[in-house]
């Protein structure tokens, strides 16, 4: 049996802070869709924030997609490639994807291709549930990632070159 490309989709944030739960909600929806679609080789995980043990988790994968809410001025969502940070800016409240990538390389000698899905959020109060605009962005990101993962799963990595 052919080995599948090993993919991790990992959302982080605080779902108790409104749109800060965007990354986690994206992963929940993708996981549900993946089960229905019968795709194999895709693992899903979520947490409040990234931390050091995630360096070990991504070391076992070929491709990693982090998903997080964004306060930046972007349109709906954006997917960017993550490379190891040169400057280490670690606190245990906030480990960046770049830090995790660097830690993975330095500790485990592994270099998975890592991407970060930024989804634009708007509201950050102590409430559960997404704002209407964030929900709209989430749906667009979800549709994009479905196509992306299907292509990747079938071995089409051409989209990663852009």
């Amino acid at each position, binding site marked *: 049996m052919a080995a599948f490309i090993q993919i991790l989709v990992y959302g982080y944030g*605080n779902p108790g802070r409104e749109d800060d739960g965007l990354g986690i909600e994206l992963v929940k929806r993708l996981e549900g869709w993946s089960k229905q679609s019968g795709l194999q080789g895709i693992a899903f995980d979520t*947490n409040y924030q990234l931390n*050091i043990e995630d360096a070990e988790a991504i070391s076992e994968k070929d491709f990693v997609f982090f998903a997080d809410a964004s306060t930046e001025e972007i349109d709906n969502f954006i997917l960017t490639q993550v490379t190891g940070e040169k400057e280490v*800016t670690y606190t245990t409240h906030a480990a960046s994807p770049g830090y995790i990538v660097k830690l993975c390389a*330095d500790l485990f000698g592994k270099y998975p291709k890592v991407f970060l899905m930024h989804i634009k959020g708007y509201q950050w109060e102590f409430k559960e549930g997404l704002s209407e605009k964030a929900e709209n962005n989430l749906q667009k990101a979800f549709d994009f990632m479905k196509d992306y993962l299907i292509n990747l799963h079938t071995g089409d990595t051409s989209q990663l070159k852009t």
Partner: protein
Amino acid sequence: MSQKITIEPVTRVEGHGKVTIHLDDQNNVSRTRLHIVEFRGFERFIQGRPYWEAPVLVQRLCGICPVSHHLAAAKALDVIVGAGTGEGLTPTGEKMRRLMHYGQMFQSHSLHFFHLASPDLLLGIDADPAIRNVIGVAIHHRDLAIQGVMMRKFGQEIIAATAGKKIHGTGGIPGGINKHLTIEERDHFLQGPDPMNIDKMIDWSIGALDFFKTYYKKNKEFIDSYASFPSNHLSLVRKDGALDLYHGVLRAVNADGKKILNDIDYQYYTDYIEEEVKSWSYMKFPYLKELGPENGWYRVGPLARLNTCDFIPTPLAQKEFEEFKSLTNGKPNNHCMHYHYARLIEIIHSAEEIKKLLNDPDLLQGPLVTKGTKVNEGVGLIEAPRGTLFHHYRINEHDQIIMANLIVSTTNNNEPMNRSVNYVAKSWMNGKTQITEPMMNAVEVAIRAYDPCLSCATHALGQMPLDISLYDKDNNLLDRKRT
């Protein structure tokens, strides 16, 4: 002309804060302050919510120690639902919570030592900041850095298995727990493939302490003297005086070891402890009422716990405890940097407790919840990784929370952290008018020993910037650095 220095942010601590240092006419340090400048709002946020939501809601205080808040709230609600004050739970309920808690202690302490504290010890306080981090540790001691990652992962897996999930865990509920451990989960932790099993975790815990003790022998003067000053110490202890991180009575000793709070029932903590408000910080200053704010402040956390307890009820940690106590001839240890030593002993103890619990059949079966007659008020205390954590709730006839008071570990350490900053500032900054990176880190090393969570301490609603600023006597800013 007197001057003032400000340091922000303190890196490699939980959350952020701000340090200001004032110099006098001779450029000597005249006054220092560790400020917390974030809005304090969580206690009000949960008012009006149904009480049973508290264990899940309060976890949002912090993404790094949610388990401590989850369990402290659950313990307070045990009292409210009539399930007793710590001894009334079913064996399964109490032991599952203990397993969750010791998993949290194991992962948090491991994270702190390997990834936050060890860069200072291995590479030096004044090492190039570009390498004075875990990446630098990895270059010189890759095995240690990997062990830190895997120990943290092991503890996180224990939490997920007992709390139900990693985010907003639901395991602790008023009166008990909502799940058993499965046989598969138990066997995974007991017999998992190397290195992910409890025996390997115990081996690595001992190795970490041996590493520190070797370092200590070579750097005894630094470890014994850095920000070292006498203080009172406070923590929970088991009724027989044993170290107990989940439940017990409240004990405080003074710098000479005399009991100044004698094993009281923490339901009555307000009779013994008050919090002083200072205009320049959102973080309060707790103290023992009887001694007043000047003399009643105290340390909490690993160092305090090893000073208040009489013994550790697990053999490997007890052996290390005896050696640790011999350093100060059985008297309380007031050396700030010995927080690291004590924390490493607690890692061993936590691993031993996890193993003991995993072999206990009560985790796999038995009633989960105790019920009783509801009352309208309850207090829950727990020894969180950073020290004693107080949760106090009052509810109305509609089951809504109408009062919440949280005294978190870092708040309890507010005064000693301020004194540590003062001590280090005087050692490093007298006669200086500019801030250098080693000076900044020297201050941070002292703060970091307490493993503070400043976000928790202020019940913050966001991130807190912290800087180091230097001011003259006329309050003119001379220099300012952010890390």
